[in-house]
């Protein structure tokens, strides 16, 4: 798990005046399921195409297993790609599609036949060898595309938004399928997607990208729970991002109210961004007859909350209720299994562990990061 299989060193790439990747450095370990995640135009697909050999970087090197492969043609690389819209050969049967790479490599007929059988079994499409691609559904075609790639025994499988064209249910099934395949094959997967849920479900490592820069690299848990900046927090799941002030270590002032937190070393009275996930906002009902004085006098924040507000929107989402609460001039997004009616006065509290403090972006440039989907 520790060996670097692929090293991207200082990669820059631009199309005309449009800088797509800016001095990118990234390593991919052997046997890792790594996901490049970001909005369209963030450079994730370009990164994949550079690894696959379909684009060459303007500057920088691609090191594969210790060898510089920056200028190597795609047909000479020890990796295979699963393309976005399957890219099957429509003039060939499924079996001929799968055999294509092996025939090019002049493998024996019995070897090829065994491999076709094995690959079709692996993707649960055993009886489809003699059919043509257009007679298969999207999900089946995508599985054939994967089978066609893996019979060549690549060290790395590159997947370019392979589930993008499938409907939700099928996409979820295919996610489990991919995790299973990854385990059975024991090879490295590099996966490109703009779907954060897909990334969180399948990956060992997520690389969040935006506008040609890597925003954060980490495990799904790290990316979700400890986003490094407002872009990552906003892109991965729903979140409340509130401009706040770090009073001192372990104390932050949010919307004029002091909240204890666990973060340190931000300095004193420093402006920061605070991320609070909607499911981490704790709410209590404040009955009508409770006066402001009584609220102010209450010592226990779990009784009437630290901030008080009014529920403005309520949507039932199945697993939970999604609510918007106006409190101290900020519209809080709240997910809760209990329902709070619109117009209800509520108290808001957040556990110190659930308050994520982030440095404010330093330059104007970085502030311009926005989520576009």
């Amino acid at each position, binding site marked *: 798990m520790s060996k670097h299989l692929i090293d991207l060193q200082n990669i820059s790439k631009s199309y005309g005046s449009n800088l797509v990747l800016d001095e990118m450095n990234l390593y991919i370990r052997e046997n890792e399921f790594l996901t490049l995640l970001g909005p369209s135009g963030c450079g994730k697909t370009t990164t994949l195409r550079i690894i*696959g*050999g*379909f684009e060459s970087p303007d500057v920088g090197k691609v090191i594969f297993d210790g060898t510089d492969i920056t200028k190597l*043609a*795609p*047909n*000479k690389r020890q990796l*295979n*790609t699963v*393309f*976005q*819209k399957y*890219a*099957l*050969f*429509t*003039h060939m049967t499924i079996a001929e599609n799968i055999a*294509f*790479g092996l025939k*090019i*490599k002049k493998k024996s007929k019995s070897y090829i036949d065994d491999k076709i059988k094995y690959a079709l079994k692996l993707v649960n499409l055993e009886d489809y060898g003699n059919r043509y691609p257009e007679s298969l559904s999207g999900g089946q075609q995508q599985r054939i*595309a994967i089978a*066609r*790639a893996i019979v*060549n025994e690549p060290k790395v499988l590159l997947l370019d938004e392979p589930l993008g064209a499938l409907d939700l249910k099928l996409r979820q099934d295919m996610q489990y399928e991919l995790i299973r395949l990854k385990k059975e094959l024991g090879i490295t997967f590099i996966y490109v997607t703009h779907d954060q849920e897909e990334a969180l479900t399948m990956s060992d490592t997520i690389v969040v990208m935006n506008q040609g820069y890597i925003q954060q690299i980490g495990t799904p848990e790290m990316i979700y729970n400890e986003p490094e900046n407002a872009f990552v927090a906003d892109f991965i799941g729903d979140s409340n991002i509130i401009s706040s002030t770090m009073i001192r270590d372990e104390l932050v002032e949010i919307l004029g109210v002091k909240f204890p937190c666990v973060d340190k070393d931000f300095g004193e009275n420093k402006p920061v961004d605070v991320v609070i996930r909607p499911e981490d906002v704790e709410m209590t009902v404040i009955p009508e007859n409770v006066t402001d004085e009584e609220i102010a006098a209450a010592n226990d924040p779990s009784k009437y909350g630290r901030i008080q507000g009014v529920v403005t929107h309520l949507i039932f989402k199945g697993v939970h209720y999604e609510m918007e609460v106006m409190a101290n001039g900020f519209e809080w997004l709240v997910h809760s299994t209990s329902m709070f009616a619109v117009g209800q006065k509520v108290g808001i509290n957040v556990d110190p562990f659930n308050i994520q403090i982030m440095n404010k972006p330093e330059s104007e440039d970085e502030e311009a990061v926005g989520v576009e989907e």
Partner: protein
Amino acid sequence: MKSNKYIKLLSAPYIIWAVAFIIIPLVMVFYYGLTDKDGAFTFANVLNISRPEHFKSLYLALILALISTVICMLLAYPLALILSGMKTKNDHLIVFIFILPMWMNFLLRTMAWQTLLENDGVINNVLSFLHLPTLHIINTPAAIVFGMIYNFLPFMILPLYNVISKIDVNVLNAARDLGANPVQTLTRIILPLSVPGIISGITMVFVPSLTTFVVSEMLGGSKILLIGNVIEQEFTQNSNWNLGSGLSIVLMVFIIISMVVTSIYDKEGEGNAL
């Protein structure tokens, strides 16, 4: 139900068109071709093709049409490949330039080749100016092939370009990804996927080349008779409609054979690139 009736009504003009200008003329060709001057049924007109001078002109027409089709294919395929690989907005402009001659009158274009190829024409003038030996091209089969290629090349370029430019670039990337080098990608992926365009192109070049009489008359100097010229002369000079129609039937059979042969190579039968 009601809309179905309207659709039938809407198709009426086309049915009338087809009957008046396609079906009836065809029936007339078959009638004249299979009767003699007194209207009695006979195969004599059709069998007339076995006369040496008629057979020779059919044979020559087939050979020249074949040569010009092959040359058109060899010229057009690389062009279509290059253009569809360019991925710029200019490829449409270049295709436009190549098909621009189609906008000029067919006779004018062929007359232009006459002036170019003549013994004291433009090409020979340039050659003699450069003290190079002059060429005798006009009134040879080569001149006819020149004329056919020039006139019919756009009909080969268009369907090929249409089909090749529609091949998903990721399909080509997938072939490369699976280890195919550029030549293998061409022979195993691009060529088979462009078969419908090849079929269209062949049909649209071979058939008019086989039947032309204008090109052969203007560039062959009425010394070289193709089957088209023979048929034309039977109708216009000899006023023998029966013989002209009989030979036309023979020519039609050859066209049908050529189309059947090409479509055998098109598994899916989708020769509809244009």
